[in-house]
């Protein structure tokens, strides 16, 4: 189980591959479900040039660790990984990766979805968008 806040750009696929090689026993998992959230170059009808992600150092990690532990207690999963970007990012940059390994697919799919929903609804991160006409804080997340 790993939770990481990254101030630099990251490659979500390579990150998953490395994590699996280093932490998941070969031949034991049949399923890996993952989600990658990336920065779009538009939001609410406006072009977004830069996005800045702020977090609450300490509480964010604690909250993400808590939802990983909760996922492990609710579903029969082997391991899970959450990476979240902070700082300034460009359109198309990956923002978040959640990945779950399990023996069977049901648990991996459900736990991966759970991690993302909990992360989006409660983890202390805040997005600020830089538009042509200035900056704005994103007021709320899309529910789905």
């Amino acid at each position, binding site marked *: 189980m790993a939770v990481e806040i990254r101030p630099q750009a990251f490659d979500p696929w390579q990150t998953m591959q490395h994590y699996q090689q280093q932490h998941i026993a070969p031949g034991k998992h049949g399923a890996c479900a993952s989600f990658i959230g990336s920065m779009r170059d538009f939001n609410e009808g406006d072009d977004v040039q830069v996005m800045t992600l702020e977090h*609450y150092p300490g509480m964010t990690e604690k909250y993400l660790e808590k939802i990983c532990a909760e996922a492990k207690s609710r579903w029969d999963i082997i391991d899970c990984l959450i990476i979240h970007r902070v700082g300034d990012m460009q359109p198309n940059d990956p923002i978040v990766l959640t990945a779950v390994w399990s023996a069977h697919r049901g648990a991996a799919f459900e736990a991966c979805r759970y991690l993302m929903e909990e*992360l989006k609804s409660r*983890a*202390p*991160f805040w997005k*600020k968008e830089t538009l042509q006409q200035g900056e704005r804080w994103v*007021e709320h*997340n899309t529910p789905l």
Partner: protein
Amino acid sequence: MTITVKFFASLRERVGKGEASLTSARSVSLYDIWQQTANIPMPDNTLCAVNMEYVDRNHVAQDGDEVAFFPPVTGG
């Protein structure tokens, strides 16, 4: 007792500071703490945490607590 207070994101900008310290002779709720450290009314959707755990604004702080106020989260 002494309490550390943090403001994040748009609240940090609106309040005009990221951190404050409060010394109080009596026990104080988070709402009291906001009123004594922020110069604007507390927005309805403000989220509160004590020692990095969510609590509501009526929660009473203890000596040495780290209290945080922030707007709805928008990560992921």
